[in-house]
């Protein structure tokens, strides 16, 4: 079965490439963005994204933490995984239900985090009727 759509936001091309490859190997559909602005553009253009994996320190108008807050505000059902080489943000700084990964992260940690975020439902949106009911604008 084809798995959920994940948007990877990371300014470092090699990290983004490897992370995308890792998630594709795990049968996720992966979209890539090099900063928060590009990520928001993609988020505005499609409604099947189930999770966003973002770095914190990125150039552009928003850093990853602000991006995560913006996503939590506008697309509440989207799962958030946030990574940084620095210490984890405090609970107040962190959007609700988001998960944190310390950089450098191992492939297993990324996959485990998504397993836990998606729980028993790692598929795309159309297989999750309760989400569609709760957020009617989704397909």
């Amino acid at each position, binding site marked *: 079965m084809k798995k959920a759509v994940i948007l990877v936001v990371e300014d*470092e091309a*090699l*990290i983004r*490439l*490897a*992370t995308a*490859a*890792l998630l594709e*190997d795990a049968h996720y559909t992966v979209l890539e963005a090099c900063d928060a602005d590009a990520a928001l553009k993609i988020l505005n253009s499609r409604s099947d994204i189930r999770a966003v994996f973002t770095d914190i*320190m990125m150039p552009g108008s928003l850093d990853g933490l602000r991006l995560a807050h913006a996503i939590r505000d506008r697309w509440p059902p989207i799962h958030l995984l946030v990574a*940084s*080489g*620095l*210490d984890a943000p405090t609970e107040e700084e962190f959007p609700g239900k988001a998960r944190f990964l*310390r*950089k*450098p*992260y*191992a*492939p*297993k*940690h990324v996959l*485990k985090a998504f397993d836990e975020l998606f729980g028993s439902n790692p598929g795309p949106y159309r297989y999750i009727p309760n989400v569609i009911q709760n957020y009617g604008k989704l397909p």
Partner: protein
Amino acid sequence: MVSYPNDRSTAPNEAQIIFRQNLIRVWLSLREPPVSQKGAAMAPQPILSHPDVALNLALAVVAHSTAPLLLLNGDLSLVAASTSFCRAFGIDPATIANKPLRELGTGEWDVPQLNSLLEMTATGHADVAGYEIDLCRKDQANRRLVVNAQKLAYGTGEEVRLLVAVLDVTDARIAEKLKDDLLKEKAVLLQELQHRVANSLQIIASVLMQSARKVQSEEARSHLHDAHQRVMSVASLQHQLAASAVGDVELRPYFTALCKSIGASMIRDHNQLSLDVNIDNSIMPADVSVSLGLIVTELVINALKHAFPDSRHGVIKVNYHAHGPNWMLSVSDNGIGMPKAVADAKPGLGTSIVQALTAQLHGIIKVRDANPGTVVSIAHTQIAAVANDA
């Protein structure tokens, strides 16, 4: 009667200074005859009953204060000002006699808040303690002043006198701010550095994992996975270092995190194999810690790969204990044990890494059969260190 600066407009000459020093001696001895202006002895009597001498002394004390001081009367005009005050705030000493404070200089001391505070002080209703004002003068940068004022108590029925100390803290504040800014900048730089190190390690790890994904040979893939694990071991230390301020590393959390990371990426079935970490409270410098961490990484990877073939169950134990400068690190397993023909086996990269790092730490490697399994220990003693250095 001698008074300063009311009837003297210039700085005191040498004779006057000596005269005032004499006055201070008089003050201290209290009952010694004070010396008159002409040097003639006077009848012995307590100094406090001598208003002239007492006033002179007070004026001398004010005039010579190295901290800027003003002596004001009840209507806030100047009785005396210290030379340091005149110098610090560009006031001509010739112009200060009996001048109201608000007319001093070009009127820059006419600060309503200060005036009302001083009036309150003069009437005994307030004390001015650490009041800050900005002194604004034409064509000059503002100065930040800290003002302290107190009504002097020196006997009943006397005139009101206020002692006002004025401290210019502008430069101190600038220096303080500079220090704060530097500290902030240092914190930002450190964060930036930490971010870069983590990102660089992530890039290396990512490239290695990408390579492992692409290669056809199982052996090559295994080597790339090992290389990836070595990078993650260094990263694990980086996390511990970031948490400490001084570049020292607590070994227990470091080795625990390290083994957790190795276990997470290399142990498929945690019911089959487990990692047991037993470390004392040792704290080691970063360079030693990274070597110890890499040794642990190699020995644990080696045990995971070779000690438990065919899904054999077992435990790998990592121990570290120190006594003073001596320490012992060991990695033991209860697996199948070393092959009999060790000498024939070509040492791999892992063995070379362990040997090189052990030599760097002035340690000695011992490998022994544990029946079942193998114990590899690295011991460092000061005597061994001396022998190695020689």
